[in-house]
């Protein structure tokens, strides 16, 4: 797939603060792309640079090969759904959706047809005559979506589109958004600080940290193969076991932490300090002492149990003092959950379970 949007060495400063720092990124045609990061990481600025609301201090933004420098927002074939929705309070729902089409001077009947089509798309048929302040939060969100899609933009920009919805609605809307993007074959770029949201909707995710890209990849890549401690920690829950790489073999490395000997599969790192990043759900927990000393394992005692319904998180202080989290699906009902606080347990994991991180 060809790159539709290209950021080339793009830099944006606000006074002494560098929001986006010489960042280079390609967004492909028809993909659902997520810009994920904590607040202040520059993700919204990047989106606004693409929409044209900010001018870069360095670098270029290209859309389908065309340099967007000097093209004002109202001439860019991209549309944005604003975090605040920014619906026009003096217009009806239909008036809001038609706003962009009127600017293009489309004939009246064509505008009306497109408005109906857009409202049907977001399941708001029949709401056209309502005033914006007569709608619920979820309905407003959909009006904003319909308005930003009405002009059939080459790229739809979504700035924290679900942030204002309550949790249940937000989770449902994620899937709707994904289905919509698949149906419309439009390139969507979403900005979010919510990793679950990014993972659910996006084909690829760019993780941003302090104005730079930390990692770009599919949800599976950034979750299972994070390239730094920061990415591993930001996306999902992780145990970081600080250790030293002692030997590098073609398909695995060995690590050492005090008396603990660890083996991790297939990671290209040099000997020296590193962290083994281990997702809680990849750690097994049990009372029984393994028959033979496992390669990757540790004994410890349970300090805390968090019950989340679908799974439980066990916090275990292993004998060298480090606290590890192990997540276990609650496949059985409560009778079978036999591990209690202060129990002495064994943790173990496969060599493929973790990733060795030098950064």
């Amino acid at each position, binding site marked *: 797939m060809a790159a539709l949007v290209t950021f080339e060495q793009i830099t944006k400063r606000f006074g002494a603060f560098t929001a986006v720092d010489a960042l280079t990124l390609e967004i492909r045609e028809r993909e659902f792309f997520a810009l994920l990061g904590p607040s202040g990481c520059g993700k919204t600025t990047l989106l606004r640079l693409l*929409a*044209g*609301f900010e001018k870069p201090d360095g670098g270029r933004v290209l859309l389908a090969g065309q340099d967007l420098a000097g093209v*004002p*927002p*109202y*001439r860019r074939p*991209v*549309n*944005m759904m*604003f975090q*605040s929705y*920014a*619906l*026009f*309070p*003096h217009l009806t729902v239909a008036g809001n959706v038609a*706003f*962009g089409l009127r*600017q*293009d001077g489309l004939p009246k009947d064509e505008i009306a047809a497109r408005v109906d089509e857009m409202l049907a798309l977001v399941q708001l048929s029949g709401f056209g005559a309502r*005033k914006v*302040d*007569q709608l619920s939060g979820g309905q407003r969100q959909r009006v904003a979506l319909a*308005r*930003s899609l009405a*002009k059939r933009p080459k790229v739809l920009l979504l700035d924290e589109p679900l942030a204002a919805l309550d949790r249940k609605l937000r989770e449902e809307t994620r899937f709707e958004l994904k289905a919509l993007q698949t149906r419309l074959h439009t390139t969507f770029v979403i900005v979010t600080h919510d990793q679950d949201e990014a993972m659910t909707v996006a084909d690829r995710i760019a993780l941003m940290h302090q104005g730079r890209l930390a990692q770009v990849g599919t949800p599976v890549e950034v979750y299972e193969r994070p390239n730094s401690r920061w990415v591993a920690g930001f996306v999902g829950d992780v145990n970081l076991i600080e250790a030293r790489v002692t030997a590098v073999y073609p398909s695995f490395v060995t690590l050492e932490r005090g008396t603990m000997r660890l083996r991790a599969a297939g990671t290209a790192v040099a000997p020296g300090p590193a962290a083994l990043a281990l997702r809680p759900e990849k750690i097994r927990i049990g009372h029984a002492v393994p028959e033979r000393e496992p390669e990757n394992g540790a004994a410890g005692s349970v300090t805390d149990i968090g019950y989340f319904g679908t799974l439980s998180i066990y916090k275990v202080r292993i004998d060298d003092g480090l606290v590890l989290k192990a997540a276990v699906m609650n496949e059985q009902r409560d009778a079978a959950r036999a591990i209690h606080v202060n129990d002495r347990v064994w943790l173990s994991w496969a060599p493929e379970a973790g990733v060795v991180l030098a950064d």
Partner: protein
Amino acid sequence: MEQERHWLTRLAILAPYAWLVAFFLAPFLIVAKISLSQTAIAQPPYLPVFDPAAGWEGLKEFLAAFSLDSYAAVFGDSLYLWSYLKSLAVATLSTLILLVLGYPVAYALARAPRRLQGALVLLVVLPFWTSFLIRVYAWINILQHDGLLNQALLALRILDAPVSWLATDSAVYIGIVYSYFPFMVLPLYAALEKMDEALLEAASDLGCPPWRAFLSVTVPLSLPGILAGSLLCFIPIMGEFVIPDLLGSSSTAMIGQTLWLEFFGNRDWPVASALAIVLLVLLLTPLLIYRQREASVLEGRG
């Protein structure tokens, strides 16, 4: 306790009504009554005068003496009609000038950095710290033949010879626009300041160049401010007396001046009162239209 609070609550509700009755309704009724009386060389200078001592018969006699002669005079004499029209023309044009000048100022205030806005708004209302009368007198000084305005225009070579400003309509407009400026700017500022700037970005994003975004988003959203500011200026300008009297010529009498003349010059209180009542009715009309609009906007929200 409960009883006492109930009583206090009632009193609190009554207080504003009592105020309105004492200081608005009662004076209005007195003026209305005088407008239905006849002039007389007496103290007070009109008839009839209600005498409570005369009892029921006295009241009947009193009511029978009411006449519409003053209104006939007001509507019969073109002098009054011209005064009303003059006031209407001055108030309309001044309000338009105020809107055109005030809108950019209010817009700039609303878009100024937050920390400066308080200070800038203070600057707009700062003239109120000086007496209104003194400020109008100051304009006489500025506008007179060898005043600041002529000096400045001559120095800038815009004029070859001094122009007579005083006692012209221009002077009246200058004085009115100057005096009422804050009354136009403040409601506009209040309306514009509330506006979410993301709306302009949204308009731009949807293909609206800035000037069209201004017309299709900013102006409609500031309409309440435009209406409020225009009414706050238009209504008092209609009845304006001091500014045209001090800066204008006697040939350009506005209704306020005519009223003053009838009252103090001719001591014809009934005609002066009739003029005031007609003016009030004229002014209530735009206010009622405004109220109607407000109500329909509120209904639309409900």
